[in-house]
């Protein structure tokens, strides 16, 4: 599903976020990317979402080389991927259901069909009863679940998440991870950036550890997540 071949990303300041990174995520996998802040986790996800382009190397997503995606085709490309953010990135001027419906509205899905899909997505994250509320009236965990519902409402094959549990306490984090797990069980490929190593170990998923923009040779074993 995702292949990175010798990917380097250098920012204008000369600072190198990724250096010759090679990695691959198979279809149907649920993979975590770990590493300290500045290790290149976010950059990796931004390259996949085409928010940025690599300085050199190839990023291939679902058999498509992102280098060949022209600027005006980026929106259509992004619609194939579900994205979850640490700060949720919800729109606070409209109710939960409208937030979740946004990807469908963008894709031009009819109103009735959109309504059905929105309710299904909210049901999957357990927030169907909060459909009419405004995001600011929800807790951080609930807001993140709204963000997840929005990411999966158009049934993407790939879902990427940048620190989805970054602002959540352990119980809520586990709840969010369980939701991800359920999507994975129905065939969605997930790539999740997180520093919550103990949680990842409990889920028993593959872990890609980054350090200074490279793969870490020996993933660290002990957990420092709660420190």
């Amino acid at each position, binding site marked *: 599903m995702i292949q990175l071949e010798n990917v380097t990303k250098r920012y204008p300041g000369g600072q190198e976020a990724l250096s010759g990174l090679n990695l691959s995520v198979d279809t149907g996998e649920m993979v975590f990317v770990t590493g300290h802040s500045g290790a290149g986790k976010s950059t990796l996800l931004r390259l996949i*979402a085409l*928010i940025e382009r690599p300085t050199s190397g190839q990023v291939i997503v679902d058999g498509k080389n992102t280098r060949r995606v022209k600027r*005006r085709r980026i*929106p*259509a*490309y*992004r*619609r194939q991927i579900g*994205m979850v953010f640490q700060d949720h*990135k*919800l*729109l606070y*001027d409209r109710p939960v259901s409208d937030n979740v419906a*946004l*990807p469908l*509205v*963008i*894709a*031009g*899905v*009819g*109103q*009735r*069909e959109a309504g059905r899909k929105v309710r299904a997505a909210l049901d999957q994250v357990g927030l169907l009863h909060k459909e009419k509320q405004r995001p600011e009236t929800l807790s951080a965990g609930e807001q993140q679940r709204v963000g997840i519902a*929005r*990411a999966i409402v158009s049934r993407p094959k790939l879902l990427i998440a940048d620190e989805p549990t970054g602002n959540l306490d352990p119980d809520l984090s586990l709840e969010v991870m369980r939701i991800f797990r359920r999507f994975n069980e129905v065939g969605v490929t997930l790539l999740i950036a997180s520093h919550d190593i103990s949680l990842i170990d409990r889920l028993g998923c593959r872990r890609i550890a980054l350090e200074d923009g490279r793969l870490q040779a020996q993933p660290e074993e002990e957990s420092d997540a709660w420190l």
Partner: protein
Amino acid sequence: MAVTRNADAVAPVRRSGPLSIWFSRHLSISVGSLGRLVRHPFSSFMIVLVIAVTLALPAAINLIVKNARSISGSWDNALDFSLFLKQEVSEDEATGLGRLIEQRADVQSVLFISASTALGDFKEHSGFGAALDQLPDNPLPHTLVVRPSPSNTSDSMILLQEELGNLPEAEHVQVDTEWVQRFHAILDIVRQAIAIGAALLAIAIVVIIGNTIRLDIENRRDEIEVTKLIGASNAFVRRPFLWTGFWYGLFGGLLALGLVYYGLFLLQGPVARLAGLYQSNISIAAMNLEEAGAIIGIGVFLGLFGSWFTTARHMRRIEPR
């Protein structure tokens, strides 16, 4: 249960086509943009008012010129020549000459005004009645008022004027058309000035709407970024702003129309009084349907153009970070 299943079976058939989806999306976006304006009534009204005044100004001046033209156009008699005859020409000679001139192809009619009639009229209207009675003889000549036939061109009018002036009996030919022509020339200049002024004002409206939309875009920058992040195209994020421009233009045009009509209403009394003084029945010609439609149409066009221009510049710039 059976009912539910039936509904499910029918659903795909009733599924709306792409066109109706497109239509309903536009409807909801336009209503949404309208709602945004209504939520900030004061600032929205201010912008609409500025647009309305800017549109109403040239429209009102244009209307004034149009009315002035139609009034002056009705002064057909202003085209007449007054042919003043020499003092020694007798009344019989004058009527004979009148009949002769009337036979010309380029003359429609000739009216003979005798010196005594002219003096009588003058006494009556000038208020110098008593003073004129002191005069030993009538100082006024006989006059022939020559009305040229309507087929005359301006060249043949000049020729006619010259020929009348060259008659041995003629003392002086007065052409009453000159001031009408000057007046029309002035109106033409005013019209030109309006056209230039209106073009400048149109630019002003585009700038006002563009600037308003630009502020709106800045205020909703986060929203635009998020929407783009989850796959919205430039066209998609632009649409609500285009609708905002549309609404500004539409309401600006409607209010401009209201202002012009209110101005006409205010002028109705004074004009009727003026008409009364001139014993004429001039009344103000209001705008016709096309002119009213043009004001609204121009408003909408400028609104759309202003927002289109601004969004084209800014939407590409705002990308998710």
